[in-house]
């Protein structure tokens, strides 16, 4: 089965879970975005056909929400909160410096090994316990330079272990 056919089968499975109506569009895109770390052009075409929603509208939705991406991203998407209560914490800049140093990339970029993407996010709702960041769906609080390095190392080990298991 070619890649496109595999995606169509996957989308059909998601339709069975979420339904075929327009209200299923967000949940289906969310599942695809989570499974592949992004929503590919082939995925958008498959969703468009399965739900009978115009392609431009699927693309419109996929590019509106900041948690969706239409470009490939790393296994772990890191989103650092940049809103005021986090950004004014003394540990904020050291934590970001540690991210840059460990990953060797800037915001909006993905590491060459495909493990990490680094992004910024607006208020993650952790204002009382900042600085904070999300790693995929989990949230990390009271970031310091040291804790950032520990978190990244744990992700790296998990990613390598998963690769070995394959």
């Amino acid at each position: 089965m070619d890649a496109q056919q595999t995606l169509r089968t996957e989308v059909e499975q998601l339709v069975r879970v979420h339904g075929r109506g327009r209200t299923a569009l967000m949940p289906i895109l969310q599942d695809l975005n989570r499974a592949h770390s992004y929503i590919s052009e082939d995925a958008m075409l498959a969703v468009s056909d399965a739900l009978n929603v115009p392609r431009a509208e699927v693309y419109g939705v996929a590019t509106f929400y900041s948690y969706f991406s239409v470009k490939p991203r790393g296994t772990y998407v890191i989103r650092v909160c940049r809103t005021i209560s986090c950004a004014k914490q003394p540990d904020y800049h050291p934590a970001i410096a540690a991210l840059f140093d460990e990953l060797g990339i800037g915001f909006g970029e993905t590491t060459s090994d495909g493990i990490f993407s680094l992004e910024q996010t607006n208020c993650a709702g952790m204002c009382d316990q900042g600085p904070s960041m999300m790693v995929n769906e989990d949230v990390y609080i009271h970031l310091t330079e040291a804790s950032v390095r520990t978190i990244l190392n744990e992700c790296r080990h998990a990613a390598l272990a998963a690769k070995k298991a394959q």
Partner: protein
Amino acid sequence: MDPKTVRGFVGNKLSFSEVAPKDGIRMAAEMAPEDVVAIIGASGLRGRGGAGFPTGKKWEFARSQEGTPKYTICNADEGEPGTFKDRLILTDFPELVFAGMAIAGRAVGAEFGILYLRAEYGWLRDHLEAALERCRGANLLGKAILGNKEFNFDIAIRMGSGAYICGEETALLESLEGRRGDARNRIPFPVQAGYLGKPTTVNNVETLAWVPCVLVKGPSWFAAMGTRKAPGAWLFSVSGDCKRPGIYEYPFGTSLRQILSDVGAENAKAVQVGGASGTCVPPAQFDRTLSPGDLATGGSIIVFGPGQDMFAVAENFQHFFADESCGQCIPCRVGNQRLLEAIGRMRKDGLDTDGERNVRQLAQTMTVASKCGLGQMSARAFLAILNNFSGELPGRA
């Protein structure tokens, strides 16, 4: 991930801890729906999302609509910078929120509810699904709730995907319907034509958590907590330069000075009340009170200590709005971008009379001509900072 690990600090006893969700649902099950609406109306409960619309009135409108089915939605897209009370409520009291939704359903005649949870709180989803299962198991959700054959209600959780604008109720509805989060025109209001064009109530997490409390303890208990014009209490999210950031419950009419003293921030230089779309209060106004008639708020308090550069604060907020504008209308899409650029310039070069007139005009245009609350409110913080702290700009000292 266990939500309790990021629960944070709670500064005083919360009224929510005194009420069993089941008791609220039982009362609603035994009451006529119109009586439920009447009690919520009599309590004076207002929406806790920021707009402060009377909850009883919203439900009355929805109840009087003929279209079916009707829907009850909980807005858990808490995205206003500095606001995290819904996070705490969903961590500690999810069943109370679900009870509030079921009671809303009973009141307006809806049998299906949706909780729209922001993507940033995705780690709460398993915790909430488990709470939903407990409610179903105890017959607090489902068919014939607590034996009343006419009381059927269930809830689904739907996720956002990272868009502040979806906290605006009509943008939230668009998102639920599988579209971009573009705010709708009103009229019609969601209570007339909301989710899928059907009558829909959209209430904030905290509002819904208060609902079973009001039923169980009575509207007069609730009203006794606040002032005559603004009954009840509110959960405040306190962050920034203070010794004890966290969640605090205060009755309406509490002074800002009192709160600053409780959280350990007596030396504050300024306080942002109501999040990025709120206003920035200088020390001369710390005796003002938190209530709809004075300092209206969505419950967010961000403290700025003596060392803070207030125009860096304004730039951070402005960056937020330029980023989160949905792009649908020009005053908001272009205005927020231009204002962001202007703040950057004035931080570097100062602000002359012409420049000041221009930014004030721009702010006025955005406030008057933007389609929804995002653009209408986004210049507020900047204007308050300009009015009170312009001495911090280069050449103004």
